[in-house]
């Protein structure tokens, strides 16, 4: 029982980080119907900003998190303005390839500027561990889970209760008619990128506190997994992204716990495949009419 609960705690921690990144994929897909493959690398840049904020400026946890989110939000907006907006009328494939290019650009610029060395974030959070009925849970895990859930609630509020959020949903519903009704399309898209990137940065910061080795290629695998989580939850759906992320965390940890770990990735992605076979649009996805 303790064993199962411990693995559950592990799964929730992993899932909450996946969720923060998966949200960005889902939001951008929602408004632009494009997969922003640079998102994993935006996550990596977020981790590096956090690293410099924490080491050079010696900031504590919360300011570090905010600086990283702010810096990365700016990066997200810049990427959209310079790389994606000029291509908005171009074929979908061109935009996807551009997104790949932006991802590689970010990876390589960090590599060129900072070198391939691994760095580690100083311990920003207390490393106290509580033991509840034999299950060990650290303050770190509690904060990671808490901050993630908090950010997701804020996001939910923005999307569901504010005018900007309503505009986002409207554009996501019909990107061609809604701007004709006076909704400032570009501003809303920029805002989407800013929020999505800021969440990725929060994910990056929390990730690099939980797994304190950061490197220029760290975004690749995590980015892929978060993307899979977003698809599994129903890409474009915000609640779906969160559900997909926790489900992926759970699948990964439980297959590792039940089967020999060398089959872990094999089995966990077979599970993803089965879920998508049963529900091709993902858990929360709705079948949409293809536009344009």
């Amino acid at each position, binding site marked *: 029982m303790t064993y199962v609960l411990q693995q559950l705690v592990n799964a929730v921690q992993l899932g909450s980080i996946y969720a923060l990144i998966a949200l960005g994929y889902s939001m951008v897909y929602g408004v632009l119907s494009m997969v922003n493959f640079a998102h994993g690398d935006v996550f990596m840049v977020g981790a590096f900003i956090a690293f410099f904020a924490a080491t050079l400026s010696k900031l504590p946890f919360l300011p570090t998190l905010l600086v990283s989110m702010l810096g990365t939000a700016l990066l997200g907006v810049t990427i959209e303005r310079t790389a994606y907006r000029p291509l908005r009328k171009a074929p979908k494939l061109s935009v996807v390839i551009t997104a790949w290019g932006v991802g590689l650009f970010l990876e390589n610029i960090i590599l060129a500027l900072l070198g391939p060395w691994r760095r580690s974030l100083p311990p920003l959070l207390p490393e106290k*561990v509580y033991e509840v009925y034999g299950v060990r849970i650290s303050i770190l895990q509690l904060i990671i889970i808490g901050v993630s859930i908090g950010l997701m609630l804020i996001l939910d509020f923005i999307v569901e209760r504010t005018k900007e959020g309503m505009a986002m949903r409207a554009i996501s519903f019909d990107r061609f008619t809604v701007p004709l009704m006076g909704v400032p399309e570009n501003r809303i898209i920029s805002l989407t990128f800013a929020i999505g990137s800021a969440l990725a940065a929060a994910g990056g910061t929390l990730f690099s506190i939980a797994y304190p080795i950061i490197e220029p290629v760290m975004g690749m695998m995590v980015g892929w997994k978060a993307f899979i989580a977003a698809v599994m939850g129903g890409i474009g759906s915000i609640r779906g992204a969160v559900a997909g992320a926790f489900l992926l965390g759970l699948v990964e940890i439980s297959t590792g716990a039940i089967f020999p*770990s060398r089959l872990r990735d094999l089995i966990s992605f077979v599970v993803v495949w089965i879920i998508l076979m049963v529900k091709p649009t993902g858990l929360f996805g709705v079948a949409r009419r293809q536009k344009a």
Partner: protein
Amino acid sequence: MFKKIAILTLVLACLSTLFTACKPAAPPAPEVPYGGELKVGVNAEITGAIPTVGEACVAGAELARDEINAAGGVEVAGKKYKIVLVVEDNENKPESAAAAAKKLVTEDKVLVHIGANASKNAIPAGGVCNDLECPMISPWSTNPYTTLRRPWVFRVPFIDSFQAGVNAWFGMNEFKATKGAVLFDIGSDACYFQGFFFKKVWEGLGGKIVAFETFTTGDKDFTAQLTKIKEAAPEVLYVPQYYDEVPLIVKQANALGLTRKTGGPTVIIGHDGWESPDLIPLCGEDCDGLFFTTHWALDIAGEKTQAFIKKFRDKVGKDPESTGGLTYDAMYLFVEALKNCGELTGDLAKDRKCIRDGLAAIKSFEGVTGTMTPTSEGDMIKSVQIVQIDVPHKAFKWYRTVEPKDYEAALTEHGLSVEELMK
């Protein structure tokens, strides 16, 4: 005009005699073969990504040469020979390492080829030396393919399979353990083999492997595997991974309360992939007190080693890296081979063969990096240094040396053979 031509001819004639005089014009039946000078080729990574490795290698070779020559040279069959080094830079590139080996063997006509150090360079250089039938000793390469099916190629360090076995022996003896576990990257062949050999030896010595867990290259979350390992409660967990993954694994193990330090049942041990100046900054307090095996430590006890370290510091002005000590040992292995050979004829092919056989015939050689005996494959059964991580002093402190005879004795007791377990 005529005068000018005459002078020019005269000058040219003089010059030509000068040049021919430089060439050793095959002295008829020399008293001492090779004019009393034995050429040793050094193929080192002097430029490229790992210049300090090459620097220490060359310095180690020079130190040995100076010592030998100062003592009057090597005596073979009553004749004294000086040692001459021919150093080639392989730029830390496989193709340059092969080209340098070819040059040393065919143009410089060295008797023995020492180098290359990094396995990626030593593997092609070994191919060249083996094909051209010139004995080669790699001071640093641990990859099995450097010497595999190459009777002319030897090495100074132990190889991974041997190291993994010694780790199993050490873990069992030091911590009075019977239950062992392994966590390794299934995507890396080096890590895979280490995990595999550890299991083989641990079980061979009568222990039980209670968890044999893997992950995939690039994974950062090991909590599922570590929770599983905790459930199996091993006394020793072997992590044959590198310094960039070790901090993540150790920190997560500590957070889960798996390690003895955090009230759990387990001690984590590792191999030489842990050895990096970055390990302590990356891992911090969490890694304090852990053990791993390696080739070299600056505080190895033993007069011979300490004397070498002192001489190296005096000569180079800094501490020797592992290649310094290993190359120094390679030079003396060559001297030992000369003694075993017994006679030099001046016929290069014949003498090279004699030196190769002399290397293979070495029984137990005591170097600055420990005692060693080559196997039939040219790999070393040798001492393994165990170091302990000391975070407050930011150092890897030498803990003990596992002598090959202790390890061998334990294996023999269980009906195992070291050579078999290295394959």
